[in-house]
């Protein structure tokens, strides 16, 4: 047998021998072979994260772009149907997702993964209760406590609850039952979070210092889920929470007293021709320095059109209750605006498969103009900007 095998040795020996006649590592004065390496860290600077959810039984990815010119700097990847968030300093990324060893069938596990953004490296992984919400990504489905010592993770089996993870110990502190409520909106002044409930009220869950017990308090009715349903998307404005309804009514809420109270309701499309409604998934983004809210909008909105892409992005002055400008930015389903005096706006289009950067001009009523773009493969409904 050995003889017959020897007759077919072919490639192997050629491989070994082929190094003789070619110049690899040979005495060529002018040529030094290149070396293959992995880049240790991304270049510094502010970043934009687009969270690409995988619904096909494979890895979800948060793609990291330079906030300056949207060139791709790196990525972190996890399991299926991910939810994603960042630390306030942008240095740490969190992804909750599911790994299914047989992809489309059989059991799996749900984990929270912690990544060092600079190196794109996985630094910690925490096994979660097997209940993670398998839901189109929204920033409200994975949030950190104000002190960033705890992570709150939305469950749905479809019974809803929230897993509280102690990030210091790396352990699950408790599972907070939240039947009929959804979305996680952490408090700023205490350890805990609020959630939107099916009857139009909010419930606020205040946790003990170790995260292991909770007390809950339900608000008065805040909105009408039949007549004026709100999105999960939210942002903070001077400490208050901003939500928006399908019909473009902005709900400004306070959670400072351990329960949600209504501050104001502002119909931003009132008096505008064309039956405009809110458009997309990540639809509430507020520029702090100028008090201007940005919202993707579409005309002739109707039952079922709330997740359609935008025709315009509106800049609305929430201090003066004034619609400032309607920038014609088509097909966006997620936006984020930075908080400074001269804001930058970022948007993601599912239809185009692209992330966009827009300069916003405060001297031109906050009109937005495209300055950069980059392709993004896959399904994304959220994006985040880090310092």
């Amino acid at each position: 047998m050995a003889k017959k095998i020897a007759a077919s040795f072919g490639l192997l020996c050629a491989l070994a021998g082929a190094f003789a006649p070619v110049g690899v590592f040979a005495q060529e004065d002018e040529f030094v072979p290149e070396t293959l390496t992995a880049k240790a860290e991304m270049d510094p600077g502010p970043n934009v994260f687009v969270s690409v959810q995988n619904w096909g039984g494979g890895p979800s990815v948060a793609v990291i772009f330079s906030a300056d010119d949207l060139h791709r700097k790196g990525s972190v990847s996890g399991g299926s149907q991910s939810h994603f968030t960042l630390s306030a300093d942008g240095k740490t990324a969190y992804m909750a997702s599911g790994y299914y060893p047989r992809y489309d069938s059989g059991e799996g596990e749900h984990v929270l993964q912690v990544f060092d953004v600079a190196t794109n490296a996985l630094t910690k992984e925490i096994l979660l209760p097997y209940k993670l919400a398998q839901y189109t990504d929204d920033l409200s489905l994975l949030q950190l406590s104000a002190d960033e010592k705890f992570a709150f993770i939305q469950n749905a089996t479809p019974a809803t609850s929230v897993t509280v993870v102690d990030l210091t110990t790396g352990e699950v502190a408790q599972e907070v039952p939240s039947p009929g409520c959804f979305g996680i909106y952490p408090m700023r002044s205490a350890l805990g979070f609020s959630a939107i409930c099916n009857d139009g009220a909010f419930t606020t869950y205040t946790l003990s210092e170790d995260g292991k017990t909770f007390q809950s308090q339900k608000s008065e009715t805040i909105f009408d889920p039949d007549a004026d349903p709100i999105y999960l998307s939210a942002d903070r404005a001077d400490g208050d929470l901003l939500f928006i309804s399908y019909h473009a009514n902005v709900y400004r809420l306070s959670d400072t007293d351990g329960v949600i109270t209504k501050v104001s309701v502002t119909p931003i499309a009132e008096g505008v021709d064309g039956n405009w409604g809110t458009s997309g998934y990540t639809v509430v983004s507020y520029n702090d320095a100028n008090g201007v809210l940005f919202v993707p909008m579409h005309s002739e909105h109707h039952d079922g059109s709330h997740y359609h892409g935008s025709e315009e992005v509106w800049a609305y002055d929430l201090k003066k209750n004034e619609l400032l400008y309607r920038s014609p930015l088509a097909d966006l389903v997620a936006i984020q605006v930075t908080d400074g005096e001269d804001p930058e706006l970022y948007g993601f289009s599912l239809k185009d498969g692209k992330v966009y950067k827009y300069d916003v001009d405060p001297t031109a009523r906050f009109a937005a103009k495209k300055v950069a773009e980059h392709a993004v493969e896959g399904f994304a409904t959220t994006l985040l900007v880090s310092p």
Partner: protein
Amino acid sequence: MAKMIDMLLEWMDTAAEDRARGIAKTSGRRSFLQKAGLALVGGVVLPMLPYDNSNGQAFARGLGEPDELPEDCEYWRYCSLHGSLCSQCGGSVTQCPPGSTPSKVAWVGTCRNPNDDKDYLVSYNDCCGKGGGCGDGCSRQEGDRPGYRYGLASESSWCLANTDRGIHCTVAIVVGLAE
């Protein structure tokens, strides 16, 4: 009805489940009806046969449907659909493709049947345990609400209560009259 409620409560599990079951048993169940109304019927656990060789002809009794059902997103019972049509994946309007498993839970829409001008409750079940996309994706999502009304939430996977989590396509089962 008691049994149906028990089936619905299969949604619930562990700590959250036990507390919630207690609530359900002790609180006035019907007090929410008027404001919650039809919109909250989601999550119905349907009577399921293990297999069906009728080629999907077992549907549509009393609905005045044509013999051959439309295969596009505009078909009336797809009014709240968000997913791929199983009728284009080897199944039918009411049948999962061979080798896939119907989801145990579902979201529900209320759709007007143009054949008799009545509103029907339609249960949108995902077919689970099979990989790969198939069929036209529809996103009509009428009556859709975010997860705070989970039974209307078309943005959820509805294979989430099955052992096999892979989502293949979605069927539309007429389960009731809405008035």
